[in-house]
């Protein structure tokens, strides 16, 4: 038997003298590496711990129990558990941009230099000013805020709410971008084993030996689960040794993947699972090129849920006092970490396994102050052992209250006769039975079922290939864990096509798991907490009952029970049991809480992975991108594309001057613009024309080979989907363009029509958007410019290649190209396409060829100005709400064919004469700047919704006109040309007179395109 290295008085404990390093560390034993001493700090005080410690075990080794303040009452809180269920010991880990609020000290691995701070306290943890809230606890009952803070109404935002918000919340998030990276991994397996305790290890061994692809996931940094925390034997080996041997064998199996430090947080449909691996959280900072965490997206044919169970606290007065712990946690700190959590430890138990604590404490050299068993009969040998160690043993008793402030000093015990006594102790271990971890199987909306034998919810019929084993299935003995894990895995492997083979399970010591839970102490002194973190007391459950919040969902929402960061892992059942008692129902009749993913909280960064900053979404570059960058283009995000917006030149004072120059140059000389972003679709096949006739709203039957035509597409509801051009390259060969924004949508729609609506058509459709670099070359000198790049055998004169002509040509001495004579700008214009690898070369060649003609590159801004000058509808007009008639193209629609959208476009609401219709607008005072989004109202109107007559959709400064112009939708617009109205734009403080005019501001006859 070992003894403690130091014996300390209570006064010493209260003083928390840091220089007495690791005073509570047992001399030997535990799984920490005592050769690796680590420095760390908590609230600015330095301590030492060992490799293999958690922050919690290291703090306990140093006698630190007080680690946090509660949410509402700011009560001092300590360390309840030794695992991820911890509600109390949550701290801010690290600092600066890496600060991690609400980190559970019980799972935070110790590393050299770890820095942690308590949270939700001011000015200090020991003296928290808001501790005064505890005094006001009689007022701050559940739901009190629904009943007050209502007068006067304006005070809520100004006074009450800011006050509440400052007081509420827990830790502080970092206030800088997260400097670390997050990785993502897709993994597939036959058998996923969740949990690396005895059941999980047994399962992984069985499935792995069968040859199945196995993934074993455990949230801990060490495999073994309860074997690490308990003194148990498997065959001739200590449990820990058996686990180590199992791990060795698993590592030797090539198809077994072991993921430690990995929490399986969510179960999704069809065998999809989410897990997060904390790759670098046990290090001061991630290594070079290493992520902080990695999201595992696992697809498994079968899963064995061996996640274990969570011990239940007792509900009695002051059960939240630092020093009050779960009994299993006390054993874990002793056996795994070599730490005695107290000098004089008392045990309150409703189960046989609580008595193990007595054995373990004594074995570690600790003192047992008392054992209170809430049951009538206790095995004699257990009682004798405790009494012979000097402990007071009370049966059929309970704990009513606790004493101490920042640390437990004594408990008030009531015996079976109802008489009370005070027993001094600095740690109380609670053993009230175990709840199987049913969280994961309830993620797919399965409700667990009540098992009266073990007084706990257990998984119901499991969803989609999952099966529970071991403690997670309510099979608590070590023998059952090993056996059920193996059986579940053997079945799973068999399902996946492997031989079902069970290996002999090694023997274990007999275990008694009998217990009769005490849901709450009959007499309670002080506040008895059900949900520690959210400060929900038994009295709050009573109040909820009184006010009619009796269903589990109401109870939870009214009291906030189970809604804290621990999701009520240690509290839900206690709340239900009290409500059951109050309503005279059985526990399952009150209801079950549906646990939501994630099992434990997951960093947002891990779920986002690579996709942040510039990598949030892909960036598509146009073929001329390199040239544009070299030449100082200003780029703009257009969907996923990055397009050159304009090309500033030295001496130009703002973007407008550059854009004006680009427009003027195009209109007077020549310009080149990268229009590769357009969708380009190749359509071939015997029925290509028949298909297009049904697909497009305007007729195409008469389009000859070598010609292009504007195309208008409707949705089936009669609204315009998109517009583009269709060129006929051959008898059964067309190429269509779609707008940049709608390219993917149009392609999907075409496939829908081909595959689903009209499968009988023999038509082949391929996207060629990426294959071709395509440039608009526009302006009076466009032909002269192109002449310099088009191979000489091709005649591109106006006669040979008139407006709307299209042809396959070659450039640069045999490079295949496509030439279309189409114009968005209203000028003599071409679009020329070459295979994208030659896009850069073509651009440079055109720039060179155009230099004598004064060519300018122009960007999306000038492109937009020129299309507005021509009154062409684009994205702001084809906005999903407008009909072809609305944008002035009603006359183009075919009369004699069936096509998508034909019937629905004629509904009365879409054909009303008052519908806002596309027209132009110009300011009466030509110096005024129009703004898109301004509404149109009559000159004498009082602004109101009823006065609204339309709005401006697109505006531009027109260098050709020398003033701002706009196009937009105005009720009966085309009939009101010349009328003056107001452009009403209060969000930008503008309201001035404008004139309704034709939407075509430049070359209304369209003669320039035809020269």
């Amino acid at each position, binding site marked *: 038997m070992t003894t403690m290295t130091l014996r300390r008085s209570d006064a010493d404990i209260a003083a928390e003298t840091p220089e007495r390093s690791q005073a509570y560390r047992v001399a030997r034993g535990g799984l920490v590496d005592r050769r690796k001493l680590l420095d760390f700090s908590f609230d600015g005080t330095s301590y030492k711990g060992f490799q293999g410690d958690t922050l919690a075990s290291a703090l306990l080794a140093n006698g630190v129990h007080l680690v946090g303040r509660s*949410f509402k009452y700011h009560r001092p809180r300590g360390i309840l558990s030794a695992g991820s269920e911890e509600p109390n010991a949550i701290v801010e880990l690290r600092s600066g941009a890496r600060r991690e*609020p*609400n980190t559970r000290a019980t799972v935070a691995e110790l590393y050299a230099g770890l820095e942690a701070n308590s949270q939700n306290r001011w000015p200090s943890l020991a003296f928290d000013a808001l501790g005064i809230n505890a005094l006001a606890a*009689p*007022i701050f*009952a559940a739901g009190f805020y*629904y*009943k007050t803070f209502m*007068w006067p*109404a304006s005070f809520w935002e100004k006074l009450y*709410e800011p006050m509440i918000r400052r007081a*509420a*919340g*827990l830790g502080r*998030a*970092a206030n800088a971008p*997260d400097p670390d990276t*997050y990785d993502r991994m897709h993994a597939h397996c036959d058998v996923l084993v969740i949990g690396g305790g005895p059941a999980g290890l047994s399962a992984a061994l069985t499935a792995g030996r069968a040859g199945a692809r196995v993934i074993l996931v455990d949230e801990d940094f060490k495999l073994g689960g309860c074997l690490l925390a308990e003194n148990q034997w498997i065959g001739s080996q200590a449990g820990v040794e058996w686990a180590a041997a199992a791990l060795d064998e698993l590592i030797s199996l090539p198809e077994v993947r072991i993921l430690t430090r990995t929490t399986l947080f969510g179960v999704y*449909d069809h065998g999809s699972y989410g897990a997060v691996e904390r790759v670098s959280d046990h290090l001061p900072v991630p290594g070079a090129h290493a992520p902080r965490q990695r999201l595992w997206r696992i697809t498994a044919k079968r899963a064995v849920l061996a996640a274990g169970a969570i011990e239940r606290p007792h509900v009695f007065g002051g059960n939240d006092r630092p020093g009050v712990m779960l009994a299993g946690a006390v054993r874990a700190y002793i056996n795994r970490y070599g730490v005695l959590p107290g000098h004089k430890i008392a045990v309150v138990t409703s189960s046989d396994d609580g008595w193990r604590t007595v054995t373990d404490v004594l074995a570690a050299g600790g003192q047992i102050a008392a054992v209170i068993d809430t049951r009538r009969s206790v095995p004699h040998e257990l009682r004798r052992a405790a009494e012979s160690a000097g402990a007071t043993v009370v049966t059929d008793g309970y704990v009513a209250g606790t004493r101490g402030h920042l640390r437990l000093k004594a408990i008030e015990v009531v015996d079976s006769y109802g008489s009370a006594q005070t027993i001094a102790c600095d740690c109380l271990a609670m053993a009230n039975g175990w709840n199987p971890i049913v969280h994961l199987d309830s993620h*797919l909306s399965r409700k667990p079922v009540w098992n009266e034998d073990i007084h706990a919810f257990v998984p119901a019929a499991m969803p989609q290939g999952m099966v529970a084993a071991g403690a997670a299935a309510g099979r608590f003995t070590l023998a059952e864990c090993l056996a059920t894990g193996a059986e579940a895995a053997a079945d799973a492997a068999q399902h996946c096509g492997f031989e079902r083979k069970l290996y002999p399970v090694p023997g274990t010591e007999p275990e008694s798991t009998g217990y009769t839970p005490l849901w709450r102490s009959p007499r309670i002194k002080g506040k008895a907490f059900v949900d520690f973190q959210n400060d929900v007391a038994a009295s709050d459950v009573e*109040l909820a009952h*009184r*006010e*009619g919040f009796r269903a589990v*969902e*109401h109870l939870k*929402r*009214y009291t906030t029970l189970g809604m804290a960061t621990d*999701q009520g892992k240690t509290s839900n059942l206690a709340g239900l049991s009290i409500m059951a008692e109050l309503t005279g129902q059985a526990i399952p009749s009150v209801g079950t809480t549906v646990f*939501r*993913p*994630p099992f434990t909280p997951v*960093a*947002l*960064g891990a779920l*986002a*992975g690579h*996709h*942040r*900053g*510039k990598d*949030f*979404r892909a960036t598509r570059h146009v073929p001329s991108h390199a040239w544009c960058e070299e030449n100082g283009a200003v780029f703009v995000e257009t969907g996923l594309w990055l397009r050159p917006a304009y090309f500033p030149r030295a001496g130009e004072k703002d973007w407008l001057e550059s854009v004006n120059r680009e427009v003027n140059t195009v209109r007077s000389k020549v310009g080149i613009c990268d229009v590769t972003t357009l969708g380009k679709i190749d359509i071939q096949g015997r029925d290509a024309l028949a298909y297009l006739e049904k697909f497009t709203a305007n007729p195409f039957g008469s389009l000859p080979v070598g010609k292009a035509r504007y195309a208008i597409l409707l*949705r089936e*509801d009669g609204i315009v989907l998109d517009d583009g051009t269709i060129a006929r390259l051959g008898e059964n060969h067309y190429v269509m363009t779609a707008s940049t924004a709608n390219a993917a949508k149009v392609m999907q729609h075409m496939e829908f029509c081909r595959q689903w609506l009209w499968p009988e058509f023999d038509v082949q459709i391929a996207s060629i958007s990426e294959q071709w670099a395509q440039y608009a070359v526009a302006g009076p000198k466009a032909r002269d410019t192109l002449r310099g790049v088009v191979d000489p055998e091709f005649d591109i004169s106006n006669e040979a290649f008139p407006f709307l002509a299209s042809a396959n040509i070659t450039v640069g001495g045999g490079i295949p190209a496509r030439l279309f004579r189409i114009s968005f700008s209203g000028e003599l214009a071409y679009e020329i396409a070459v295979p994208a690898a030659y896009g850069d070369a073509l651009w440079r060649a055109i720039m060179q060829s155009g230099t004598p003609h004064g060519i300018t590159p122009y960007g999306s801004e000038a492109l937009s100005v020129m299309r507005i000058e021509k009154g062409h509808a684009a994205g*702001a007009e084809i906005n*999903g709400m407008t009909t072809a008639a609305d944008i002035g193209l009603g006359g183009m629609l075919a009369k004699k064919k069936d096509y998508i959208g034909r019937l*629905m476009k004629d*509904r*009365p609401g*879409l054909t009303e004469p008052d519908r806002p219709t596309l027209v132009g607008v110009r300011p009466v005072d030509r110096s005024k700047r129009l703004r*898109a*989004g301004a*509404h149109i*109202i009559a000159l004498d109107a009082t*602004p109101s919704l009823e006065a609204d007559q339309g709005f401006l959709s*697109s505006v531009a400064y027109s260098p050709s006109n020398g003033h701002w112009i706009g196009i937009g939708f105005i009720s009966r617009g085309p009939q009101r040309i010349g009328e003056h109205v107001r452009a009403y734009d*209060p*969000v*930008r403080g503008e309201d001035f007179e404008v004139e309704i005019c034709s939407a075509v501001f430049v070359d209304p006859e369209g003669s320039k395109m035809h020269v």
Partner: protein
Amino acid sequence: MRYSLFSVLGQALRGQKDWKPQWRDAVPRTEYDVVIIGGGGHGLATAYYLAKEHGITNVAVLEKNVIGSGNVGRNTTIIRSNYGLPGNIPFYEHSMKLWEGLEQDINYNAMVSQRGVLNLFHSDGQRDAYARRGNAMRLAGIDAELLDREQVRQMVPFIDFDNARFPVKGGLVQRRGGTVRHDAVAWGYARAADERGVDIVQNCAVTGIARENGRVVGVETSRGFIRAKKIGISVAGSSSLLASMVDMRLPIESHVLQAFVSEGLKPLIDCVMTFGAGHFYVSQSDKGGLVFGGDIDGYNSYAQRGNLATIEDVMEGGMALWPGLGRVRLLRHWGGIMDMSMDGSPIIDRTDIGGLYLNAGWCYGGFKATPAAGFCFAHTIARDEPHPVSAAYRLDRFATGHLIDEKGMGAQPNLH
């Protein structure tokens, strides 16, 4: 007992012993003037306004589960009236006005918090669309401000202004928008309706709707037949299932929308903020949790849970907008079932069946509409004609083409 600071203080001294159930758990009677199917926010508000505005108190609200267990308790608590189309604007503004006086009206603190709703934009086109919307709001007398990048930076300095894939160019803010404690809305309306005599019947599932001569006469329920002169359906998420009981097909699909909450944090963000270049919106609850969401999962579902692809999409949006969130942890995510309508707008109307009324199709915008939906649905039921502010929400608008399609997505519910 009336709720006030004094009653709370008084009860603090008496150990909170005198509080009574906030509403009676009523046993259904055999006949009512009006039966409202659905004890969510809308159904309870409808019952309250039937009693308050129209003096109709012989009303039952039938809820298959417990009240407030549907979308009123599963949403992200946002209220706003920043719509752009004339069919929507007056309705949502009416709702906003009701929110502004709600707590005093029903004597229940639902924590209506007008902390502002900020919609970010990232392109000139988006700016113009928001300007159009803001101007429409201003025309209707609703507050709206267009902010430039620097003004946005002052409101939310922590978002990514330096390295963003889609740089923030500005925002549209409605300062009267904000959040409300969602559960309290259901409970508050329940308590206020109960006080006026409405029966709130829980655990009472409607299994059939009985008709005689083209008129409804009552409902079959798990607790027996209940006669009713008029029946209002207010069961967002399940509207099609109820409609199928009278052989109606609706322009609605049921879809799952996920919502998310982070661990509790000290105050970080003081408004509701929406990302304009991805699916992400966020606010912070009074308890400190960041409440956020994104796009619907996109497929028909009644399962109240979603899948990882959407979760990742939302988190990517969150990290892109607010890279300081990387180490903040997601605490919980869940799903609610939306009535996704064919134009993204709701229906408050009579049906072709006498005495049967429909309140449906709220997409993911139903919570903010709760007071006005109740108010207008009560009006429609009581007067047999639409209330002027909800007059556009007709069931036949899909046939007539009077669509209210704010997003311009057309007849595909999962795109709204």
